[in-house]
């Protein structure tokens, strides 16, 4: 097979999760104003303080301007053509038996069985369909350990004290344009609270699915790990194939108190648009964790293969002394995808440590950007950072960029940054072929090897999925 053909093969790969589920839905007409926010809040039967909080965010959002600094161009998002709330008609099921079988089938098809007998062993799942949470599995088992894992709308009703204390404490309403928008209109998402000295008995997971046309998905996730606790959380997402761009503007906040650990893993596979760059999800997400207490640890791992445009920087604010922040990322872009992703590590406490490992793979006509910030504040004595960003280019029409900002105001700290960019080397390919491995398999091996450092950070179930995703994506790709 000639090189050109192989690259074409890669480009013409199918998006497997691109089907639409036919369910009757209750969708607000497009447009955004204070009334829409009141309706959303009303539908969720929220207390007055929550509505106020949303309205405050909305008013701040109106004062803000669409950020323009990113290394990308895209048609402007018309915020009045988006519907801010959509839920399947048969809302509010008490148990799984009442959930629309169409929706259950959808999640089944995506590999997320919600039925008792088919449940993923050892993983509790919260499934979010457009704007609402459909089902949460393993609730009883988790309750026994004192772990709260529920849709955030439920948490606002049942645990208002926790929500009031932590919501917006890491990502304030006016943090940025899309975070403000999310604060105003977020409809659902997951809430997790791990009590003191508790190790969450199973992996927690949320699966997001955009189904309805012309909607935006604005979910909000809040995870609080109390002193000495541990939780591992997984997030996955897909959307149907459509010609229109859809907006996904989520906010994720993590709070780790003293000695607590949070491990947050994402496999992002939103619809990336077709080979001509038509359609796909705009994924503008704010993710930030706060290591509030001493010896706490937050670890982000992400595999980004989807979305027309990805724009996210999972960050860690290292406030507690001896706290640790980690960021492991694989971002793969193809066709006309654009990914601008990276992390921020803000070192405030003493002896804080952070590690950043980012692997970018660009193919087709895509653009892949690592953009990161490491900031050492004057009182962060003994801070340590290690950063490594590698890019792999497949094809001569794509771009790979690295923009690391390193700001150091402390002379008792050590920072290292390294980055490389190259293509799959002819020598490596030659070596594999010499040993009887065909070219396609060789490229796949080399790319998998390239990403290995990140994959080994993923929980088992996700590592398998991520490996498969990359393999499908790179079928036939020979640089």
């Amino acid at each position: 097979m000639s090189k050109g053909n192989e690259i074409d093969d890669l480009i013409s790969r199918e998006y497997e999760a691109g089907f639409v589920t036919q369910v009757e839905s209750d969708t607000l007409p497009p447009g955004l104003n204070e009334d829409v926010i009141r309706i959303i809040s009303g539908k969720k039967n929220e207390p007055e303080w929550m509505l106020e909080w949303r309205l405050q965010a909305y008013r701040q959002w109106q004062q803000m301007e669409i950020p323009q600094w990113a290394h990308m161009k895209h048609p402007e998002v018309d915020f009045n053509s988006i519907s801010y709330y959509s839920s399947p008609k048969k809302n509010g099921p008490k148990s799984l038996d009442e959930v629309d079988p169409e929706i259950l089938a959808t999640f089944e098809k995506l590999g997320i069985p919600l039925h008792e007998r088919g449940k993923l062993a050892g993983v509790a799942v919260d499934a979010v369909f457009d704007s609402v949470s459909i089902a949460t599995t393993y609730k009883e088992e988790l309750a026994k350990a004192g772990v709260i894992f529920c849709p955030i709308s439920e948490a606002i009703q049942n645990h208002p004290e926790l929500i009031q204390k932590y919501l917006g404490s890491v990502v304030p309403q006016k943090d940025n344009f899309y975070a403000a928008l999310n604060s105003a209109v977020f409809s659902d998402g997951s809430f997790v609270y791990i009590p003191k000295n508790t190790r969450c008995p199973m992996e927690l997971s949320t699966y997001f699915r955009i189904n309805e046309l012309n909607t935006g998905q604005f979910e909000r996730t809040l995870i609080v790990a109390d002193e000495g606790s541990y939780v591992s959380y997984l997030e996955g997402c897909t959307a149907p194939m459509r010609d229109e761009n859809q907006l996904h503007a989520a906010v994720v906040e993590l709070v780790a108190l003293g000695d607590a650990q949070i491990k947050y893993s994402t496999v992002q596979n939103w619809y990336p648009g077709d080979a001509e760059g038509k359609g796909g999800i705009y994924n503008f997400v704010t993710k930030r964790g706060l290591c509030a207490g001493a010896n706490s640890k937050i670890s982000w791992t992400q595999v980004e293969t989807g979305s027309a445009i990805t724009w996210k920087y999972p960050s860690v604010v290292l406030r507690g002394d001896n706290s640790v922040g980690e960021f492991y990322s694989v971002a793969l872009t193809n066709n006309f995808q654009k990914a601008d992703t990276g992390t921020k590590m803000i070192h405030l406490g003493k002896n804080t440590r952070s590690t950043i490992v980012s692997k970018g793979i660009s193919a087709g006509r895509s653009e892949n950007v690592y953009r990161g910030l490491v900031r050492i504040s004057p009182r962060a004595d003994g801070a340590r950072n290690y950063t490594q960003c590698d890019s792999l280019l497949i094809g001569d029409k794509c771009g790979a960029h690295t923009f690391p900002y390193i700001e150091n105001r402390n002379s008792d700290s050590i920072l290292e940054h390294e980055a490389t960019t190259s293509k799959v080397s002819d020598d490596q390919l030659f070596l594999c072929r010499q040993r009887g491995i065909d070219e396609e398999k060789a490229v796949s091996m080399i790319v998998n090897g390239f990403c290995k450092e990140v994959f080994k950070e993923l929980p088992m179930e996700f590592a398998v999925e991520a490996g498969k995703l990359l393999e499908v994506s790179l079928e036939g790709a020979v640089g």
Partner: protein
Amino acid sequence: MISPNDWKQQALNQQHTRLPWLHNAASQSAFAAAELPTRKTERWKYSPITALLQQDYLARSASATADETCARARLADLSNASRIVLVNGVLNRALSDFSDLENQGVITLFSMSNPEQRELVNQHLGTACNHSQHLFAAFNDSMLNEGLLIHAPAMQKLAQPVYLVYLGAPQAEPALAQSRVLLVAEPGAELQLVEHFDSCGSQANLFHNHVTEIVLQPNARLRHIRVQVEDEALVHINGLHIQQARDTHYEQHGIAFGSQLKRNDVNVTFTGENAHCEINGVFLSKHRQHIDNHLNLEHAKPHCTSNTSFKGFVTDESRAVFNGRIHIHKDAQKTEAHLNNKNLLLSKKAELNTKPELEIYADDVKCSHGASIGQLDEKSLFYFQSRGIDKASAEAMLCLGFVNEKVEQIPSPAIQQLVADRLAAFFNDVDKLKSLWGM
């Protein structure tokens, strides 16, 4: 404090001084259209220009008189070089010695140029430097009334180095000094250029805005040494713009001290294949100095290589910035570009911001960048101490070793000597290092 708008208006009012025979006045419109940088301007994010606006530098041009004894003491002992000394941007014949090259037409002042030379200037001035992107270079060009043309003839190797000395002399009142150099190396030419920025006395009232443009035509080779060791009160903005045609070779060795505000832009553009660029530098800042190094490598053509290595030494309450960008254009295949920046941050109150950037649009390339910030190595210190050398001396030696790695690469013993003397003076009032130099 002068408002940015007033500053700009003042600058615009001086545009009439531009030499009438200079053609391309795009810089004037570029300057008129540009805004003075603020903290939100990405390229000036870490370098506020408050120092520039604090005094009315644009009110007058700096006077060109310097104390001759002091000036002579500053010069490096480059006996065989053609020496051109500019005092506050104005040629000082008494201190200079370049009649050979002047007679050969290799070095000419813009004001004394013949029609052919004027044509050459008009052909090349502003081609290596993109005035719409470099506000202060546009400002420099917009009121250009004097400059220096270095024209290296084709297929010739200049035996003697060209030694340019920019000397600052003290001013009673705030004043502006501007200087501009255009170097055109014809095909196959080979030469060595030494740029030495220095001062006699305090520069508290001086703003020096300098631009060097270098155009290397096919097969030309240039070895460039840059020494910036001026008084720390100076406000200095320096632009170096290099254009490399096919098969050219450019090599730079530089050292720069910080000052009240010092900004160094180095911009390399490859316009032909198989060119090579090598940049080695070290910057040092102490007290409350500020130094900003902005490096930009435009790999626009295939088969070019670049290698950039910078070291930073930052102490006291000073602030240093390093921004190194490698931009590989589409189709610039087989490019090999490497950049690294290693820094020593020695004081609690010092600040260092470094940002190595890679922007790559071609796939068959090998690129890397690296940056590190650290302190003196505990193990090395221990090694010294275990051999009876006290801690303070050990620290001083390690610092000097760190900086010297770059100094020793300077391909001129006379300049190495000059730099060694200046380094001794520089380190002498850094607390940690006194013991070694405070003799």
